[in-house]
């Protein structure tokens, strides 16, 4: 349902009222924006001095870009591992053998239920015990993200395969294919198209969750941009938050729009008989920090 059917094409009085409402809400929005502006101004947050670091290449070279690389590196490694984890456990949950299906189901359910930060803390403290001294921040972030997002992706994979109509596998069995041929040649290719949007939205969640590394001092964008940079340029905390906020929003929106585009494409696609797996409510349905 498009939103416009909620109200009629307004008549003369309705139009007048809508215009009045528009003016009132415009004033309200402007008042909020102005209030924030004044609040910032009163604390001297618009002074050129504290914004200046962001015009210098050194700030980007030594703080923001290394941080961004840290974030993207953790996200990329975790994404690959989570996809592998999700594929393995998602297919294991579909197995005909209970001794594979049940443990895989238990692993997926447990890791989905653990708050991600607790998992990251636990790995961070457990790793030195198992493997001796060293810096395990990167590993803790990546393994935590892999276990959590991998479990969510496992559910996506399962839903994707189950979304393929039953007739497809029945037909494949009827022409004499084996179990693994049915999965590999018939079900998975159709399921992948159907679950692409859900996978990409989960990757947005994963990218956003790399920021949890900040808490265990992993050198990511949030850390270099919000902890190290304001310590170097005193007073630039608010500008720093705004700049790195914009970078995060831009990155995630680019990925999200990719997901929306893929969803539209797979909805129109005739390559698959499966309906697209709906992404968990815009990146939070399954829980995201």
């Amino acid at each position, binding site marked *: 349902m498009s939103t416009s059917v909620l109200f009629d094409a307004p008549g003369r009085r309705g139009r007048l009222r809508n215009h009045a409402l528009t003016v009132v809400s415009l004033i309200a929005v402007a008042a909020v924006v102005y209030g924030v502006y004044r609040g910032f101004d009163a604390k001297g947050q618009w002074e050129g001095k504290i914004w200046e670091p962001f015009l210098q290449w050194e700030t980007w070279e030594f703080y923001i870009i290394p941080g961004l690389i840290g974030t993207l590196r953790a996200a990329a490694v975790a994404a690959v591992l989570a996809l592998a984890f999700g594929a393995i456990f998602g297919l294991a949950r579909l197995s005909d053998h209970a001794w594979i299906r049940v443990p895989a189901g238990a692993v997926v359910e447990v890791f989905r239920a653990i708050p991600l*930060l607790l998992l990251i803390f636990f790995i961070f403290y457990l790793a030195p015990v198992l493997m001796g001294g060293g810096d395990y921040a990167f590993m803790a972030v990546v393994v935590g993200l892999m276990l959590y997002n991998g479990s969510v992706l496992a559910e996506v994979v399962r839903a994707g395969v189950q979304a393929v109509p039953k007739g497809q596998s029945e037909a494949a069995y009827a022409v004499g294919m084996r179990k693994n041929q049915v999965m590999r040649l018939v079900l998975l290719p159709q399921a992948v198209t159907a679950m692409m949007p859900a996978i990409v939205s989960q990757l947005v969640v994963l990218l956003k969750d790399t920021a949890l590394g900040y808490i265990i001092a992993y050198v990511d964008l949030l850390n270099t941009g919000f902890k190290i940079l304001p310590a170097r340029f005193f007073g630039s905390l608010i500008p720093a938050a705004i700049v790195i906020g914009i970078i995060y929003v831009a990155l995630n929106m680019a990925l999200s729009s990719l997901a929306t585009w893929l969803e539209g494409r797979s909805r129109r696609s005739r390559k698959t008989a499966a309906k697209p797996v709906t992404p968990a409510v815009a990146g939070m349905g399954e829980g995201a920090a």
Partner: protein
Amino acid sequence: MDELITYAPDLGLGFLENVKLALVALVTSLVIGTILVAMRVSPTPVLRAAGTIYVNVVRNTPLTLVLAFSALGLSDQLGLVFSGEPRTNSFWLVAMGLSLYTAAFVCEALRSGVNTVPLGQAEAARAIGLTFSQSLTMIILPQAFRSVVAPLGSVIIAMIKNTTVATAGGFLADAAAVMKETFDQTGASIPIFLGIVVAFMVLTMPIGFFTGWLSRRLAVAR
């Protein structure tokens, strides 16, 4: 197992803080989320745009940044103070940040519910002469709420798990912070970790089952 028993009272108190945070954030995020969704379907383009911008910006910002900004930016730099007592102050800052963050997801869940209400319902409401606010509150939202019970349940579960990020907002009394503190003393302890995980599961699993049951019960037969 001994560590868990020794530190159980501290951990329990920490977990209680998570529950309190979750309760505050639950109420406020549902209220703000409902207001946001009303803005996003309203006939006023300015409100629609404001709602859309809010949701898209907040949804794509990491919660860690939201909470760290609430504490270090809003409170320390811009002077937003809820209480003179640092602990109470950071509790409310985290509750505020978490509510504002969760509200964006509540809004998205509700909006996807509005989209499931068939066109005919809104048309029929208009045909019998209901105004925008009447058709929204009496026809559309009641049906929308019913179809989003399960997704809302997932949002609430995620929000409960997100209370652990309170550490980033300088609130160091919640279960995650207490667990970290304990680990500093005992080293990584599997019983303590499992204890907290079980506590969270005890909190979130019934919500999952309840909202699942409720959504089946309330489902609008079409």
